[in-house]
């Protein structure tokens, strides 16, 4: 192990340059970080809220110039604290960490739920940047209600030549229902070259089961409690895999190996398995 390997991803601080309110509970934070500028869709970073906590976040966008954005839902103490932070506030960054979505072309399906849509939007943009000729994009995005649907303008933009299928549980926007309904209809009619998903794990589990039945290739992004972010502490283990290092993206074969935990249990702060 050379010096550079341990020193390569040390914590560095940066300032929030922009805050965008995406929905009543979700904000997007923009900042500069040259290391995360190299991030590929699906990777995550650790964001330090000085004096409060350090949390893992999927990367929503990373530009060559070094502008990074992440979307955060206010769910606990740390995220609520972050939601009170404004432009100019100092945060710390480590990363990018983890593997990334394997990019391909052809008939592509993306299924996002809640803030899980963030890395998929990054992926869709990247795929289209590389080739608009060989890609047919279908994006299913779900939320409980209209004002919780995220990135709808940007999604409309990336789906200009493709299909956008929004769903809301209460029918206030798009189809009424959940994302698995249009998914099943599509898989009954089409073969996809790649299906990507990220969102609540119960949703991911259902999508996994549906793609297994239809024998179609899935890549799913998972989330777990994280501490070190570098594959050492074991806090984010699911089956034999470390979500931070072997994941966060898992394929059908791997998801099948961890199906006894997927959507069912996770490690709690004390390391015991608890229901999701």
């Amino acid at each position, binding site marked *: 192990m050379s010096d550079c390997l341990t020193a390569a991803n040390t914590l560095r601080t940066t300032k929030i340059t922009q805050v965008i309110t995406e929905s009543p509970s979700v904000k997007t934070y923009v900042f500069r970080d040259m290391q995360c500028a190299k991030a590929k869709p699906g990777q995550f970073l650790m964001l330090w809220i000085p004096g409060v906590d350090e949390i893992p976040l999927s990367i929503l966008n990373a530009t060559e110039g070094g502008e990074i954005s992440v979307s955060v839902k206010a769910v606990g103490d740390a995220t609520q604290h972050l939601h009170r932070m404004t432009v100019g506030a100092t945060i710390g960054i480590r990363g990018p960490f983890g593997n990334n979505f394997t990019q391909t072309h052809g008939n592509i399906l993306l299924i996002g739920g809640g803030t899980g849509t963030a890395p998929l939007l990054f992926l869709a943009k990247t795929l289209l940047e590389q080739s608009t000729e060989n890609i047919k994009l279908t994006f299913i995005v779900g939320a409980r209600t209209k004002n919780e649907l995220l990135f709808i303008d940007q999604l409309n933009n990336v789906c200009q030549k493709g299909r956008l299928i929004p769903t809301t549980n209460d029918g206030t926007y798009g189809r009424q229902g959940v994302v698995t309904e249009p998914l099943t209809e599509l898989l009954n009619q089409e073969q996809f070259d790649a299906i990507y998903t990220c969102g609540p794990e119960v949703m991911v589990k259902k999508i996994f089961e549906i793609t297994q039945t239809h024998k179609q290739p899935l890549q799913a992004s998972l989330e777990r409690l994280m501490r070190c972010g570098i594959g*050492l*502490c074991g806090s984010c283990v699911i089956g*034999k895999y470390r979500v931070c290092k072997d994941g966060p993206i898992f394929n059908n074969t791997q998801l099948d190996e961890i199906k006894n935990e997927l959507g069912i249990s996770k490690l709690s702060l004390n390391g015991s398995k608890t229901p999701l």
Partner: protein
Amino acid sequence: MEGSLRVQLAGLSLDYPGILASGVLGYSAESMQRVIEGGAGAVVTKSVGLHPRDGYVNPTVVQVKSGLINAMGLPNPGIEGYVGEIKHVKGLICQPLIVSVFGYSSEEYAVVAKKAAEAGADALELNVSCPHVKQTGSEIGQNPNLLSEVVRSVKDVVKVPVFVKLSPNVTDIVRLAEAAVNAGADALTAVNTLRAIAIDVETTKPILSNIKGGLSGPAMKNVALRCVYDLREKLPEVSIIGCGGVSNWQDAVEFFLAGANAVQIGTAIAFEGTKVFQTINQGIKNYLEKKQFGSVEEIVGLSHRS
């Protein structure tokens, strides 16, 4: 030729001389199985206490030049919650399972140790050296009387070998080691992390939520190596497991030459993956052949001989 890597350790026979260090990937049976498949000769679990503990709020790990500083805060499910996992690991691996134990009193160490042994632990490692949790760990391991009492109370209730993981944060490590051995310790793990701190210049504040933590990785290797050398000089008979910054076969061989019978590996897994054990095993084997040594055991303590 595989025999050349086999080592005997306080009555345990290890196929390979590299052991997973405590605190790393040691919660779940499947992760420990994966480490064994990566070439480890044994695994040590996360430290388990009497009651569940959530550990500290993040940041719990800071990457620094040539190492990591961590203050996890001994997160663990408590021995009752861990018994099932111990049994599960035993069903998955053939190599020895060493359960790391901590407590806030000698009675607690004894209760947890007994339950771990009954669940199937092949050996116990007493964590008397955690540098970042009050009233346990190094507060015990820095006091020879307390240390003797803890070791004796555990030895009274278990038959399996008892390892004592020593703290480097002491004036005279040999004095503490002698106290442990005289109280019945079967092996010494040398050493736990070095007390350390990291401060962020922008916010002017310590980074870890616990402020201070323990330094691991290459930055502390030569300190750990010196500890092993000192211990072997004064304690020629006891089994010693070197621990601290082992990242490649050269590091491992240095520890053997200083007097370690085996080595533990932790931090290197973050950068080299679980296969680091296989890579190190192969490197040691090549070294032994090139230098015409018959086995790892032949070179243990060799640097002391004139």
